[in-house]
């Protein structure tokens, strides 16, 4: 039996307060495709980005407004960055890393601490896979940065930016590999092996 949980599947026969689940008649059921860990947590395998205040994100300028910018961060509505919170003057299409300052009840977003990212590639990764790309205490992303010599920003929203300095092609292929294999254990070792074998060629 697979340990992949599907929506509506019972994950506990007692009411538990856990993410990606709901309680009905004293039992807990999953709401999304996920993995169930031994300490009763659900790790989602797919799904849209759920913005939270404090998240580090990567996005690009999609509109210039009177007093700020609209930033596309793959949410249904674009996020707003006031020009007061940004030292640089941005142009349409500029890629930037920023932090979410505020999420309100209708999911309008405000950003702060914006930093322009120049000369690089924007890569789309499933938002559910970003925690694996970053790793525990940035372990995974540090391995990739070290082995490829690239600067990498992985936003919680599912955009990653890879600088064009260093072996950016290998870095992007590594990100794709992590995205495809994020749910299979032993990921760090496989990524290290992949980077080592690619380095020899």
């Amino acid at each position, binding site marked *: 039996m*697979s340990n*992949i949980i*599907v*929506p*509506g*599947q*019972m994950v506990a026969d007692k009411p538990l307060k856990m993410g*990606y689940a*709901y309680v*009905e008649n004293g039992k807990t*059921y999953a*709401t*999304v*495709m996920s993995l169930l860990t031994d300490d009763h947590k659900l790790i*989602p*395998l*797919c*799904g*849209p980005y*759920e913005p939270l205040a404090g998240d580090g994100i990567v996005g690009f300028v999609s509109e210039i407004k009177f007093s700020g910018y609209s930033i596309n961060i793959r949410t*249904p*509505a674009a996020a707003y960055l006031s020009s007061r919170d940004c030292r640089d003057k941005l142009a349409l299409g500029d890629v930037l890393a920023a932090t979410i300052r505020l999420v309100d*009840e*209708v*999911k309008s977003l405000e950003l702060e601490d914006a930093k322009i990212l120049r000369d690089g590639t924007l890569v789309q990764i499933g938002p*559910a896979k970003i925690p694996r790309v970053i790793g525990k205490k940035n372990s995974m992303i540090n391995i990739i940065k070290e082995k490829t010599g690239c600067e990498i920003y992985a936003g919680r929203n599912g955009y990653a930016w890879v600088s064009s300095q260093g072996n950016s092609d290998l870095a992007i292929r590594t990100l794709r590999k992590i995205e*495809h*294999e994020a*749910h299979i254990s032993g990921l760090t070792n496989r990524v290290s092996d992949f980077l080592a074998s690619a380095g020899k060629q």
Partner: protein
Amino acid sequence: MEKPQLIIDGKRLDGREMEDLRPVKITAHVLNDANGSAYVEWGKNKILAGVYGPRECIPRHDQSLIRAVVRARYNMAPFCSLEEHGRSGPSRRSVELSKVISEVFENVIISEAYPKTQIQIFIEVLQSDGGTRCAAVTAAAVALADAGIPMRDLVCAVAVGKADGQLVLDCSKEEDNYGESDMPVAIAPRNGEILLFQMDGLLTRDEIDTGLTMVQRAAEKISAMQAAALQQVYERKTAPKLEM
């Protein structure tokens, strides 16, 4: 055309018993650019479902400040059958089915998490042979789960009909056209909640009760196939090529 005999020597036209499903094949995650997708072959029915969203709700007067709007679009391809609904574009029939399928999923999607957005479900019937709305609901549920949209349950649907005076599960096109009755039902298999209930023709109260228990039993089989299709996505790594 004259009505053919639908049950011969206790077997149906395609050799099934009264409570057999047609062969069902479900594949999840078949479209690369949709948020979620599924392809279902249910007997001779071939159905492709794609899910996009949650994304900005347009036109804006349709959006809700407290929940996501669920919109399904059921469409029959112009080449899907030999008969009159083979014309392209929206028809009375496809507008009705789009509405009832939207309502099925409005009741299971936890849409309060995505205010001011819409979740779009596109269902394309590539080949039809009776029971497409049930196959469409089954495909759309898999596509929604593949998109990672939070749902209370994985919905599935199947029809019960009456042919030559006997209740038959999962009517084929002949049984639908020449039988006495056809009753498509969508249920949430976890608690047996009925989400769609339509009926053409007539059934007695007892027949409806028996029919619904047949649907509940079949739903267990279908939802096991849906779950297996979804789990298989994470056992293979890339999207499969469609074989149609």
